[in-house]
């Protein structure tokens, strides 16, 4: 296990694995952000705030 040169520390994941975990995080954040933005716009339509 420990002789794998690709491994990055301190997680013990290889670079490709770390990048994949990261991609899930990024995708999740993007979708969540888009949904939140849309929800705020819709709320603003029915009960406007900021004037």
């Amino acid at each position: 296990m420990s002789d794998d040169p690709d491994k990055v520390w301190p997680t013990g994941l290889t670079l490709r694995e770390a990048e994949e975990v990261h991609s899930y995080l990024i995708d999740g954040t993007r979708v969540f952000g888009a949904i939140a933005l849309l929800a705020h716009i819709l709320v603003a339509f029915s009960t406007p705030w900021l004037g």
Partner: protein
Amino acid sequence: MRSLRTIAINRLAAVGPRYLPFLDVATDEVPLSRLLRLSLFQVTVGMALVLLAGTLNRVMIVELNVPASLVAIMLALPLVFAPLRTFIGYKSDVHVSALGLRRVPYIWKGTLYQFGGFAIMPFALLVLSGYGEAVDAPRWVGYTSAGLAFLLVGAGVHMVQTVGLALATDLVKEDDQPKVVGLMYVMLLFGMVISALVYGTLLEDYTPGKLIQMIQGAAVVTVALNMAAMWKQEARDRVRARQMLEAQHDPFREAIARVATSHGTIRLLLVIALGTFGFGMADVLLEPYGAQALGLSVADTTRLTALLATGTLIGFAIASRNIGLGQMPVRVALAGVAVGVPGFAGIITSSLGGAALLFPVGTVVIGLGAGLFGHATLTAMMRAAPRDQVGLALGTWGAVQATAAGVGIALAGIVRDVFVGLSHGTGNAPHAPYNIVFTAEIVFLALAILVALPLAARRANNKATPRSADQQSNPVEVSWQR
């Protein structure tokens, strides 16, 4: 100091595998508690189905004053994605991941879509109904946002269910598949019953604020349950990740063609479509039939739903047991359809001067038939698939099943409305439109029997050649030994 540090590190190392998602190694046998946890995804599917087809159907029409035709179109939108289940299942089969994951990434994406749809749904519905200042908003905002919300939830449900079932199939041996199918169906039913009760209590006195709380609460519960369901179910696996990189897969078109040409699959799918269509049409009509044709009270008709569910549970139990003992899934499915025919016949006679008792008895019998049929056809589809095509096979099953059920429910309502409209002029009895639909269901079930008969006969002949031999050398499980 040093010993303290060592102790702390050892403690952390011991804790790690229990609480971290990727550190788990799959063992040969999967304990029941883990399968129960996995089946939580079916609860969220049930929650979404009840919210869309039951609760919101009513709330949009009664409390939000949205035109009924628009509501029907909105609620039918998730059906658009049902055929895509085949593709989702295929994608999860050929998924390339450095972590060696196949199913979990798709369950996660599906969960995100479910959550996203629920998160914007209440506001979209309020804008659609012109609540508050939204009266002045352009109409297309309400239409598109509500449509998007329903599409997102539908896409999420299709993804989570298809890939979740594929993951469950991956985890267990073929002998245990009937039990797992039973468990998955029971949890779906459980989720639907519990969430129907909860939504009903929450919306007893409707306010827009409560609608927002309820739907967004459903969003949070969905994410929580799905996270719990997929937690540590699929092991991180470098060997499998390497295999994924090197593996050559057929393109989607060829893979689907191979499934289609394999022994009796098309026929099985046709049986699933006909049977699901036949049973599905009953779901929405039993309650209004009891009220309008037989004059039952609201409490009595609610009890009908419980009777139907009881029959279905008994059906799952019998199917689990019999298939587990080695009976052919196709024959159990055949028995389910055959049981359904007298069930519908009993319901029709109960309004034509037959004994009133025939109606509840017929309802239980229909539930029993539907339970046997649903369980057996899903198990048959699981067994028909080679291990590396489980996702594709279950996707195809889901596409056919969801489409047939959805179209059945929609058509049943439309046909009934048309005949109710016609009978206003002619003065027909109130049970006439329902009995037309019930008769149509008997016809569809009879067709399903006709299509299934050769399948049951042919499979019986093939039984001489044991097909369990190739199942023992399981490429997935071999690669789990790290």
